[in-house]
């Protein structure tokens, strides 16, 4: 019996093991001869007796708990469809959204009719993956004040496999900019909000009055941008170019690296210089 090699890379159709004791997971299949073969190009992983081949490239594969950034594509019957770069659009149920009026508010028929007032086609939002279905679809929720509609900034998309999954995906960066790094490779860069979400939650824990809670929730669905200073705008675009540089050099992207590359990029006074390929490569070489 052939022992599978657990550090190995496999290509489609390659024999993983002929030992029937293993369970086959994603990226594998059993042939007519009951042997286990790989169905994608990737790295073999083992969890107890489960064998999976994890592909190293491709579209975003949602996992429960991922913090993602997505775009509303459709307002449907009691749910929104959200495009997030996965094989299928995710669904966001009306019931998984905090509506103005407090967490415990019951959803009324009016809410169902007014869904477009909360989120409409084309709106960007950040949310968390609540559940993953077997066919690759998933359900989202925004039941936390951290999540909701996005504004005051710009979107930067990179291949999802460049994102390092971390405990916190939103980072307050140098220069009054905040980055929300969606696990799906969509990164939202925006002007820092005065108060941190943590503070909000602590405040809430202290027992707030109903009115203040309302205004917090209303903020989630606010459509208009605040006034943003020209410096902040320039800083945002510098971060944008930094991220593009990382993506072009196929470097992983995470919070501390963003800070690092931003520092390094300050050598170039004009953020537009970061668009040059030599500059990009030079910056990426400087990183650890």
């Amino acid at each position, binding site marked *: 019996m052939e022992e599978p090699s657990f550090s190995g890379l496999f290509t489609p*159709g390659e024999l993983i093991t002929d030992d029937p004791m293993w369970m086959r997971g994603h990226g594998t*299949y*059993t*042939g*007519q*001869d009951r042997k286990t*073969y790989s169905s994608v190009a990737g790295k073999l992983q083992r969890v107890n007796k489960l064998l999976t081949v994890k592909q190293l490239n491709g579209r975003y594969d949602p996992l429960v708990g991922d913090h993602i950034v997505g775009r509303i594509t459709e307002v449907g019957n009691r749910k929104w469809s959200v495009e997030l770069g996965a094989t299928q659009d995710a669904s966001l149920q009306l019931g998984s959204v905090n509506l103005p009026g407090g967490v415990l508010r019951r959803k009324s028929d009016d809410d169902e009719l007014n869904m477009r007032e909360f989120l409409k086609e084309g709106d960007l939002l950040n949310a968390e993956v609540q559940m993953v279905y077997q066919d690759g679809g998933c359900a989202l929720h925004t039941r936390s004040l951290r999540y909701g509609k996005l504004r005051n900034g710009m979107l930067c998309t990179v291949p999802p496999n460049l994102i390092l999954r971390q405990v916190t995906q939103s980072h307050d960066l140098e220069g009054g900019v905040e980055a929300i790094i969606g696990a799906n490779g969509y990164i939202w860069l925006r002007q820092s909000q005065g108060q941190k979400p943590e503070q909000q939650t602590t405040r809430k824990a202290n027992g707030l009055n109903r009115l203040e809670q309302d205004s917090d929730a209303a903020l989630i669905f606010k459509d208009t941008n605040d006034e943003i200073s020209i410096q902040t705008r320039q800083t945002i675009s510098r971060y944008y170019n930094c991220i593009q540089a990382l993506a072009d050099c196929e470097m992983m992207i995470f919070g501390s690296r963003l800070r690092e590359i931003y520092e390094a990029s300050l050598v170039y006074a004009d953020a537009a210089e970061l668009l040059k390929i030599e500059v990009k490569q030079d910056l990426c070489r400087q990183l650890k």
Partner: protein
Amino acid sequence: MSSSNIEQDFLRQVLAEGLRPDQRSFNDAREIEFNFGAEYGNVEVKLGKTRLVVQISASVKAPRSTAPFEGLFHITTDLSSMAHPKFENGTSNGVEKIMVSRMIEKSIIRSNALDLESLCIVAGKRCWMIRADVHYLNYDGGLVDASCAGVIAALLHFRLPDTSIDGENVIIHDISERPPVALSVLHIPISSTWVYISLSKDENDADNVGDDDMNDSDNDIDSNDKNLEYGIRKIAVLDPTALEQEISHGEIIITANKNREICQITKAGGKLLSSSAVYNYSEQAFDRALKITDKIQRELKKDFEQRNKGNLGTDLSKNALNERPVE
């Protein structure tokens, strides 16, 4: 989808038992019938319930500048909702429509079944353009096989008016003046279609698809039963009906002639075949080509005998149109 799930399941079950609903064996084709019309180059083909009419016509045209010594030959296929409501009128899109017209083109035109050089009248100036119009009346699978045989039979049946050259002018002699001439058909390509049907209901179950090849024997066409024993759930059936075609995945179309030549093979998807399996299919396509070629020639002979006997030939030659001066 025009058939219900239960019909499809039933057919799969029947096939799994080695039977076909019309009592044919897997390698049996339906009987093909040819009926020649009153005019030259008109033939009606029946293959089971599939019915089509081919009409050949000729006109004088200027040849292509790239091939001044060659005549022109076009085949048009007209698969409308008359054949089956599922075919959309007026578009040439759709898998079946494209496949049929391409297959006939590959089988007959690309294999040079019609000698294009014989259609030349004056090099670079005048040549015959032969066109074959294929009209489908009823659809029950086997379109490629039937139309291929129909076009070639019609070409053999067609008679081209004789021509002579008078200085710059080309004189086209009326059938009454000089006997018309047969087209120079170099060989008779006959195509055979097999489709692959997977017998398990859910053909997408990864455990079932697997690699067919693992214990597949080489002589897999003659031994469908053996394959079943091995648990291989894909079978090949010759000359599928509409329903068989509908539940199939992948097909192999081979066009052969009686000189043991393969004019065309098209096989995409379906079962994995070793080289000797492909050879076996070709051998069978050749056998069928022999049979059908024979049949076409017998029917043609019968038709022409009848024409001569009943003086149908002379009847035809009296072109009443010429006696009708147009205003």
